[in-house]
């Protein structure tokens, strides 16, 4: 069950260029959330920007009642969010959407993250670590400065392999290019992917070829966030039939082999 509540900002800090980490006091959301879900955030109380902004649940601390977000400033809404101070109150709605499908405890799994796509995968890897899964994270960024969450993944016991577009850290190239040179992910129970659309599309094709099940996290412009307005549809193929699914209510996580990429 999703809630709407006023959450107090407990922390907000820059962690990379144009990228902020924020902690909100939202015990009910923290208690209910599962990895892959998101919250719909009101960045200001004015009518401009009007709509809420969808932001993934980056991490929760249930004992402390904390909901953590990680976001990139790309426009008006996220800019206002970044300007919030400790003690400010933000209206949040959530948890929303359907999260990742978890494997059997102890499974071997892979996680592929590109840029800000790492945000929801931290909560996922924490859950996988609790389930004693063996996790390899293929983590990519533009450059070393923009690499996100590598420390958190290592701390959770995951093996982390890094790719940067400019080669300033790890493999020089993209995450899919790096994955082509590795074999670990080919023998996993599941590969979870979140990043730019091109990266998710390419990895989905690789997974299909290797016959490995995968899940991707899709984005679309949203209105309501609760499945009512049909703004956020994506094309999903199921049993040979292509239908519109709502990112907010049927996703944002979808089976990699079902997505019809454009």
């Amino acid at each position, binding site marked *: *069950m*999703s809630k709407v509540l006023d959450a107090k900002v407990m922390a907000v800090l820059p962690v990379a260029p144009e990228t902020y980490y924020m902690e909100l006091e939202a015990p009910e959301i923290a208690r209910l959330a599962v990895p892959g879900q998101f919250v719909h955030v009101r960045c200001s109380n004015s009518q401009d920007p009007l709509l809420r902004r969808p932001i993934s649940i980056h991490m929760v601390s249930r004992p402390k009642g904390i909901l953590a977000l990680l976001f990139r400033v790309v426009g008006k809404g996220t800019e206002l969010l970044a300007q919030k101070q400790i003690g400010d109150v933000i209206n949040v709605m959530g948890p929303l959407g359907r999260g990742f499908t978890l494997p059997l405890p102890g499974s071997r799994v892979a996680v592929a993250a590109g840029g800000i796509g790492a945000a929801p995968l931290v909560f996922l890897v924490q859950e996988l670590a609790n389930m004693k899964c063996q996790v390899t994270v293929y983590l990519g960024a533009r450059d070393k400065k923009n690499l996100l969450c590598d420390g958190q993944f290592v701390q959770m016991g995951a093996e982390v392999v890094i790719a940067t577009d400019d080669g300033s850290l790890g493999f020089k190239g993209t995450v899919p290019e790096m994955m082509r040179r590795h074999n670990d992910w080919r023998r996993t129970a599941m590969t979870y992917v979140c990043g730019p659309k091109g990266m998710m599309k390419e990895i989905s094709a690789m997974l299909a070829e290797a016959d490995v099940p995968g899940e991707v996290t899709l984005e679309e*412009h949203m209105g309501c966030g609760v499945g*009512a307005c049909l*703004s956020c549809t994506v094309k999903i193929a199921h049993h040979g039939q292509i239908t519109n699914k709502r990112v907010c209510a049927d996703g944002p996580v979808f089976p990699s082999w079902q997505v019809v990429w454009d």
Partner: protein
Amino acid sequence: MKPNLAVTIGGVNMKNPVTTASGTFGFGREYGPYIDINRLGAIVVKGTTLEPREGNATPRLVETPAGILNSIGLQNPGADYLVEHYAPYFATLQTRVIVNISGNTVEEYARLAAKLDGVPGIAGLEVNISCPNVKKGGMAFGSHPATAAQVTKAVKQATALPVIVKLSPNVTDIGEIARAVEAAGADGLSVMNTLLGMAIDVRKRKPVLGNIMGGLSGPAVKPVAVRAVWQVYRAVKLPIIGMGGITTAEDALEFILAGATAVAVGTANFVNPRATLDVLEGIEAYLVENSITDIKELVGAAHR
């Protein structure tokens, strides 16, 4: 004393004047976790067509100053699905359910109206002759008095349900269309649908919406909508459901004073899922504060 909030829109008896704008509230259930929808006077559900429709290409929604442009394109599962899967749920509600209908041809409107006639759980029809997001039908019917009247007459003949016709603001004289629809037998009017608009991404040098143009809604359109209600109230005797940018009780009262008997909350639901109830509670508080015993006293009061 509790003021009387009950109103009637052409045979749809509502316990209070607050309802939802079609397409912004799904089929009602989606907002179940946030509000008790049984407290609303009515709900108007998503636009329905005879056959299922896929809708338009994405992006289907973009934000503009204090508003949004949408080009959903009437995605819906079709009338048979609605009757089979949603109507039984509607029948369990303690609020009236009005189904918004669209067609490509006059005949399609009539067949759809006939199909929904007598279905338990459906209290009335809102006839959408004002959708800016479909190529055939929609706004094309609502832009001319003659075609607007034709659709109205055909729907009236096909059903015993109250027929509320939803008007488009994208016309030269909305009063003229309202008069034609009234003469054709409509029981009520919804004013207004979205304003045709568009936005261009200057970096990509391309229209933002997949469908190029879309309908503008939200606070930005409120003054246009209040004006439209004012003009329609002057032109006809039919009860009006006023909508366009309502986010607060004060906004809703503007519509009522301009001539609306009921009000619908649309885009505001996305921002505040409790917006309908906030509007309802605010209207009630205003009546109490001003010692008004019946909401109907306020309808069109700004004209007097």
